[in-house]
């Protein structure tokens, strides 16, 4: 038993130790480009010894992201998301394979978090008008009326016909919580298929990295301090992983000294109150995106228990009082700032 525990601990620690063995030529350097996409700034950095190759690969990766935005954005009337929402309670909508994959993985995360993460919470979120920037405290009655529509089990996917359907009229999906992460994953896949040895894709703080920097150095990523905008709370060396943070400081308004933020508890339609921020280190950014939201809603105790139960997943939870809880495999890797 003790041996098994030691092995598990060693595996967890080894999982986070960056391995930088890919040889680079002397002329390899980091190239970076940025674009405004998916409602945020997307930054791509790649390591290459050929500038043209790096630029072409980054252009392709941006195209992949643009394509996912076109399919997933509820603001684009022709997007698959808009079509599915308009057909709620009526019929299924044929979708692309990547879109189907995004929905299927979102549903997995919903099940894993027992509904704490739910892409059907969108209609309630809209009542708060976070997107408009002003922020409005909704009428509790309006929230109460919409809550029955919030249930990820209303989403039906048919993998053979490749369709997605919302079974209840009035239901709507909002993929804002996963589309960035999924886009980051697909962009990394595109860069790797271009044969590049290393890079980072960062979509507004949803980050995935592969390979190492020239000089065989791992990438160093900071974690935003939830209450001091000019500080990072910690940093870690990382590679071949994704790191995503969800925080109550991203979109919020303050009314009567109460902070109302965009991470809603799907069960109540109110902002979740247990945490200031949740950071997830995992294989994919989509999973990190969804799980960081789900853990935020679950709160520190249930959240850290869930993180510890998932293989290959680590996390940092900052609770409502600013107290950090770190998963066992991350403790030795974090450098507090």
């Amino acid at each position: 038993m003790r041996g098994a525990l030691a092995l598990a601990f060693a595996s967890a620690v080894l999982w986070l130790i960056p391995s930088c063995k890919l040889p680079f030529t002397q002329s390899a350097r980091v190239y970076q480009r940025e674009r405004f996409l998916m409602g945020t700034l997307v930054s791509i950095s790649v390591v290459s010894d050929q500038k043209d190759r790096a630029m072409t690969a980054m252009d392709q990766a941006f195209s992949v992201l643009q394509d996912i935005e076109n399919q997933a954005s509820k603001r684009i009337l022709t997007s698959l998301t808009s079509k599915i929402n308009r057909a709620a309670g009526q019929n299924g909508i044929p979708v692309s394979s990547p879109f189907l994959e995004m929905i299927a993985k979102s549903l997995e995360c919903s099940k894993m978090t027992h509904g704490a993460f739910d892409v059907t919470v969108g209609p309630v979120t809209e009542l708060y008008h976070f997107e408009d920037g002003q922020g409005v405290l909704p009428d509790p009655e309006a929230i109460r009326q919409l809550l029955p529509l919030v249930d990820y089990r209303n989403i039906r996917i048919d993998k053979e016909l490749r369709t997605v359907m919302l079974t209840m009229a009035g239901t709507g999906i909002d993929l804002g919580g996963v589309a960035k992460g999924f886009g980051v994953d697909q962009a990394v896949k595109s860069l790797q298929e271009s044969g590049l040895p290393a890079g980072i894709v960062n979509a507004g703080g949803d980050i995935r990295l592969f390979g190492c920097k020239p000089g065989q150095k791992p990438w160093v990523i900071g974690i935003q301090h939830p209450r001091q905008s000019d500080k990072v709370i910690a940093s870690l060396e990382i590679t071949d992983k994704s790191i995503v943070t969800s925080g109550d400081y991203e979109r919020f308004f303050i009314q009567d000294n109460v902070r109302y933020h965009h991470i809603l508890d799907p069960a109540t339609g109110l902002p979740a109150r247990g945490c200031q921020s949740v950071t997830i280190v995992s294989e994919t950014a989509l999973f990190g995106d969804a799980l960081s939201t789900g853990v935020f809603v679950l709160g520190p105790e249930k959240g850290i228990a869930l993180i510890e139960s998932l293989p290959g997943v680590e996390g940092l939870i900052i609770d409502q009082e600013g107290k950090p809880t770190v998963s066992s495999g991350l403790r030795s890797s974090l450098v507090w700032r």
Partner: protein
Amino acid sequence: MTLGDKVLIFLLILINLGSVFFLGRMGKSKQVIIQVDQKVVGIYDLHAPAARRVVVQGPLGDSEVEIQGGKVRMLRSACPGKTCQKAGWISGQGQIICCVPNKVLIRISGDESDPSLHLDGIAQ
């Protein structure tokens, strides 16, 4: 030791101290880079002694950036959401404030003197 030797030693000490001070400041120099629609429209010293306000024009109108006491923030923006204004001050290398609607980006770069301060990205 002649008077000339003493003057020479004094000057050498002065130059030495000056170099240490100058190099120290160089190591600490961080820059604020302001971009509009991916084009750099201004580069400023984050630690400049005098406070500075810079107005840049994005597709929606003016954005006003304030640099003061080693920090920078979006003071005013023509965007509807004002998320960039709510982001508050930033001061660390690698930190950014991004106004997506008005396509304005404020970034802090530099300070490569201490590798422990360098960040390749910030999860936020």
